[in-house]
């Protein structure tokens, strides 16, 4: 019999991928420690060494959208529990806890905004909500963001941060890959541009669907972008992983991303792209 191997799609851990023992405001690279307010000020970039801390969806939107321009859409949409899934705890309980812990209804926030005056649709993921995993609700909200962009005739900008598909929704989670890809195809057929920003981490089913289909793909420095996570690769193949395994720097070298853009430059770079695409058909 074929030796059963650990499959690779999903690494939906609730824990963030950085060293769990450290305080989340301690820079894992240089050990500098910051208060929340300081990190908010610096866009969650270590002012000492440039390390990019994970950025929450709301903070990301504030950092990109012109003040007061963001109008959220589909805020009421929530996950269901179609499989009555129960592992060590019921899925419903995990969802409620995530909502309480993050203040978000799901792992993605969508809405219209302007960036330096350029109208666009934003779709921003939040790793803090169940590891940014994609179930039916995330897929649906991303698809609605595409549809809203089409209605407005404006580009879509997504910021992904995800451990992959959400296991607790079983095969329906896998089906969000083609679902979001349909939405991008419709977006493209309507002549709207799609800029995909990959934040740390963008893995599994999100990398294997919409996040890889941007007309332009930019990544944040040091972001992990791999289909299979390093742990799974290590366990399955017993290969020694390169130091920069799956990082955006390696992906730039291997031709998979257009550019690495440090967070402080992201807004102006997006504005530049929006201006360029405003000329499109």
């Amino acid at each position, binding site marked *: 019999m074929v030796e059963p191997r650990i499959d690779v799609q999903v690494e939906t851990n609730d824990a963030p991928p950085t060293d769990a023992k450290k305080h989340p405001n301690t820079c894992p690279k240089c050990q500098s420690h910051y208060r929340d307010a300081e990190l908010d000020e610096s866009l969650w970039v270590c002012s000492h060494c440039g390390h990019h801390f994970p950025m929450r969806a709301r903070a990301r939107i504030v950092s990109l959208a012109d003040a007061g321009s963001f109008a959220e859409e589909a805020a009421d949409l929530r996950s269901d529990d179609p499989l009555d899934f129960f592992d060590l705890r019921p899925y419903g309980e995990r969802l409620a806890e995530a909502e309480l812990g993050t203040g978000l209804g799901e792992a993605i926030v969508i809405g219209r905004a302007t960036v330096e005056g350029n109208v666009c649709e934003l779709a921003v993921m939040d790793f803090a909500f169940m590891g940014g995993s994609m179930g039916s609700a995330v897929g649906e909200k991303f698809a609605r963001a595409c549809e809203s962009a089409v209605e407005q005739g404006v580009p879509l900008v997504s910021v992904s941060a995800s451990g992959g598909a959400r296991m607790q*929704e079983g*095969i329906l989670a896998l089906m969000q890959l083609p679902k979001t890809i349909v939405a991008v195809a419709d977006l493209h057929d309507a002549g709207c541009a799609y800029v995909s920003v990959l934040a740390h981490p963008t893995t599994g089913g999100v*990398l294997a669907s919409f996040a890889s289909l941007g007309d332009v793909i930019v990544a944040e420095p040091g972001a992990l972008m791999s289909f299979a996570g390093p742990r799974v690769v290590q366990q399955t193949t017993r290969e020694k992983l390169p130091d920069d395994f799956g990082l955006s720097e390696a992906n730039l070298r291997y031709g998979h991303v257009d550019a690495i853009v440090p967070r402080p430059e992201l807004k102006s770079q997006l504005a530049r792209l929006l201006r360029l695409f405003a000329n499109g058909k």
Partner: protein
Amino acid sequence: MASEAELRLRDRLSKLKSIGLLGGTRVSGELERLQKQLDRITAEPSEDEIWRSVELARHQDRPYTLDYVERLLDDWVELHGDRGRADDAAIVAGLGKLDGRTVVLVGHQKGRDVKERTKRNFGMAYPEGYRKAMRVMKLADRFGFPVVTLVDTPGAYPGVAAEQHGQGGAIAASQATMLRLGVPIVCVVIGEGGSGGAIAIAVGDRVLMQENAIYSVISPEGCAAILWRDASEARKAAAAFKPDAAHCLELGVIDGIVPEPDGGAHTDLDEAARLLGSSLREALDDLDGLPVDELSRRRRARFRSIGIFA
């Protein structure tokens, strides 16, 4: 006594009948097919039954893609290579005739013996495999050949080189390519439909599963390792995420179930091939003559509508 599964299926059936709710994605023959399959399902599969599917789907004697090719297609010509980096033997692609009609066939291929398993990487493709699939499917598109895909993989290969070669992007691109093909596509999960590695070649107008195939977002072992922190809880995990054909049909993920010989496809390869061939024929006949834009509209609507949320 009607099981819960039967009730849900009946519910789905009545919706289809009344308002075409899952609309646009169904064509003639759909109702009868659902009705027939409904008659076969008399109870929600138990944990044991689900696990039996997992075992049969992975059975070492289960027919693989090339076993079906040899029994169903005439004038088979295998096409190799992604025209860029390599020929990935974990995916086979080629041209052949099904009842005199030229089709392009793409399928994962596991190996039967140790040597072939190594060569075929246990059916786990690199990005090169998906790029070969895309290339050959685009050829089908140019010439109007229907596409048949046979899905049978534990998953896309999780290796360092595979990542460096762009596994995630290749899986996304392959799905996007299939969405845009202007020819009918029929996909059948014939063994393991393992996550991203499976969906990469499973975006079709008709998605079918063999009776004992499984289709899942993660392997039972992988799921158990992450959620139960114990890979040996695989059986429990499988029961929880329900990768069997009956459940996939119930969830609207597949359009029909391809029957297998009693005891599983491996007990009678010829009969398994005959049953698969008959399902393929039926599906292709159904799709025959649909205008390209209608085909495309329905295919998109089919996948756009999958998912359950509040």
